[in-house]
């Protein structure tokens, strides 16, 4: 009779149905989890094989009823019993989250296929969470979604450990540690994953202008002076930001941030000496717009600068420009002042849900020389393991540079320091608004105001 009344009741009913539907789709996993732990013993392959095809396209939104149940099925039984002797037919799925580019992802899948050939019970799924892997991982943790590993540079360890995402694997990986040529990143004394490649900056020079790698900084200074004829050409292409100039601060014995004490070191006299050295000996030869990455790279690519300081990620563009070049470590000033650029290690992070199989896969991937060879050949990755023959001179150049690397801090407290150093650079190195001493003192004060004294 009353239309409005009917509409109102209808609305209430719809809301109630929606709420009930929401609750029912959210909760079932809890009870079904316990029940589905028994089935796999009897019906192994059929239940687990369809799952990966479902998980890859729809990772997050529509998960509730279908996906958590099957994916947990293979992984949960493994930690509880000692998994050394499960029935061989037991399928294990390793979920790996990443933000690799398509080219890298293809190579990674290829390598994973090699592994699954010899381990038929294992299935490796790569799930692309670009462009914001960090948010994806943190969101997954708060909803309880399970995955085994994720791939990113090592500087997230501190944050991810604090967020409860990672589990320490010190004992599991102890046997493979001697195989690495670099220090394994740790947070508060524990290892949370293994690296497979390193990135740092080195000197990339145009062979037409610089035939031989400079042996000392004096050689480099000569080259820079020779070519510094603005605006036709400049002494060097150098992106002046905290990451790229860190080599000179660390080389002088200074530091931005000490991971052990979690204190900033900008006001340390050796850090100031490092900033001063860069400003006095390198800065005058840097081309225009020194803080802009693209400007600096294009100076080198157009032949307006003999050398560029950059990392492995820039090599593709250099090759495309048809430049005949070499890669060499930043040259030492003297025997005690050796530039130590910040280095990042790309690594697998082990989440709290990682199965033993996932950890084994990570150990194989990071230490097997064959894998490293494929990564060198196909992606130009700089290896981090010992005893590896590198044919590629570019990778060889970066491999040399990595020996002097200063690992990027893993503590979350580093985050505001990046900005503080950037301000020092902008105020005192790129411009002359302040002296370096004044700028670092202001930066220290600013960091103190952010609770980092």
């Amino acid at each position, binding site marked *: 009779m009353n239309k*409005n*009344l009917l509409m*109102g009741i209808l*609305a*209430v009913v719809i*809301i109630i149905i929606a709420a009930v539907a929401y609750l029912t789709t*959210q*909760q079932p*996993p*809890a009870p079904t*989890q316990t029940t589905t732990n028994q089935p796999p013993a009897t019906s192994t392959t059929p239940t687990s094989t369809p799952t990966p095809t479902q998980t890859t396209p729809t990772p997050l939104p529509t998960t509730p009823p279908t996906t958590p149940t099957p994916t*947990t099925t293979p992984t949960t039984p493994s930690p509880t019993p000692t998994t050394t002797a499960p029935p061989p037919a037991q399928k294990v799925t390793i979920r790996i989250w990443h933000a690799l580019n398509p080219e890298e992802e293809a190579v990674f899948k290829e390598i994973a296929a090699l592994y699954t050939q010899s381990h038929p019970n294992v299935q490796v799924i790569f799930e692309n969470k670009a462009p914001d892997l960090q948010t994806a991982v*943190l969101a997954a*943790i*708060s*909803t*309880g979604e*399970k995955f085994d590993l994720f791939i990113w540079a090592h500087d997230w360890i501190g*944050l991810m450990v*604090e*967020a*409860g*995402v990672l589990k320490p694997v010190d004992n599991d990986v102890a046997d493979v540690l001697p195989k690495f040529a670099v220090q394994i990143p740790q947070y508060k004394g524990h290892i949370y994953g293994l690296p497979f490649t390193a990135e740092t900056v080195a000197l990339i020079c145009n062979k037409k202008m610089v035939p031989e790698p400079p042996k000392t900084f004096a050689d480099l200074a000569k080259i820079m002076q020779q070519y510094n004829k603005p605006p036709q050409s400049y002494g060097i292409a150098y992106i002046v930001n905290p990451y790229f100039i860190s080599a000179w601060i660390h080389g002088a014995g200074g530091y931005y941030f000490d991971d052990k004490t979690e204190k900033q070191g900008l006001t340390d006299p050796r850090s100031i000496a490092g900033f001063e050295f860069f400003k006095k000996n390198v800065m005058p030869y840097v081309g*225009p*717009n020194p803080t802009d990455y693209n400007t600096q790279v294009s100076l080198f690519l157009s032949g307006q600068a003999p050398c560029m300081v950059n990392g492995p990620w820039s090599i593709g563009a250099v090759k495309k420009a048809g430049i005949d070049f070499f890669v060499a470590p930043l040259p030492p000033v003297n025997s005690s002042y050796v530039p130590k650029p910040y280095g990042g290690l790309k690594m697998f992070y082990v989440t*709290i*849900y990682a199965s033993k199989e996932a950890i084994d896969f990570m150990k194989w991937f990071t230490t097997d020389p064959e894998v490293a060879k494929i990564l060198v050949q196909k992606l130009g990755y700089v290896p981090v393991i010992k005893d590896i023959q590198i044919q590629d001179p570019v990778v060889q150049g970066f491999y040399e540079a990595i020996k002097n690397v200063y690992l990027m801090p893993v*503590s*979350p*407290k*580093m*985050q*505001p320091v990046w*900005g*503080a150093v*950037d*301000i020092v650079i*902008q*105020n005192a190195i790129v*411009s*002359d*608004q302040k002296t370096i001493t004044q700028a670092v003192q202001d930066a220290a004060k600013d960091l103190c*105001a*952010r*609770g*980092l004294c």
Partner: protein
Amino acid sequence: MRPQLLILPGLLLFLFFNLWPIVYSIYISFTNANIRNFPQPPPWAPEELKQARPPPDFVGLANYASIFTGPASAGFWNAVLWTLVFVAVSVPAKVALGTFVGLLMSSEKVLGKSVMRAFLIVPWALPLILSVVAWRYVFDPTYGVVNQMLYSLGVSKPPDWFVNKDYAYAAMVVIEAWLAYPFIMTVVIGALVNVPRTAFEAAQIDGAGRWAVFTRITLPLIKRPLIYASVMTAAASLQFFLVAFLWNFIQLYDRFMLAYGYYWAFGSPFREYGLAAAVLSISALVISVFMILAIRLTGLMRGMYES
């Protein structure tokens, strides 16, 4: 069934989407929620996750103590003070600019008014991110128009409008004035349409000059719409955030209240959500008090509940 029950669905939706987030964020401000424990895993989450992420502890007024006397106080007072300075500087600038352009665009002596009005509305209509990018070019320390002009005027070292805290802040005032003047202008144009022409003619016959006409006739007649627009735009200035965030957040984070709250939630090492919620609750309180006072003092609502 009683008819009042029919508002129930709407009421429930309102409570769920409007009131609950407010109540919840106030609750968060009394806890030590941070990246270690917030958000909490759902009840069906695996046991190991629940162990790794214990629930946030109730810390009482600790976050508020930190804001008013503790480690966050210096930055917070700084942010509040500079936000109020921002309101004090940018609101008169916006209103003056908007009124001036509005009067100009209402004058009979200006040709092509409708076309020009359309162009003057542009800042209002552009997506904010586009405006900020455009302004970044204007203020670019090396190539920007502003610094090129300063060069030609003989300033040997023009300021860096991104990196220098005070100059960046000054740039914020300019951008905010540019972003908001179309609003004032529109209100002024709209108000002037309703002003009878006879008032101006009478004043002119009586021998009043331009300034006298403006202060004695125009301003009193468009007072109420103008006050309304000023209060609204003052609220926008108090909530200024996005432009500063896109401009140079590491320099401007402690110059605006909302930016300071954002800093603690997403820029601090351990993402202190609890502290951020406290900062933003206080900011909301400051803004509310400001708005209530502004409305009371200007008598904006007077007569609203009569008739």
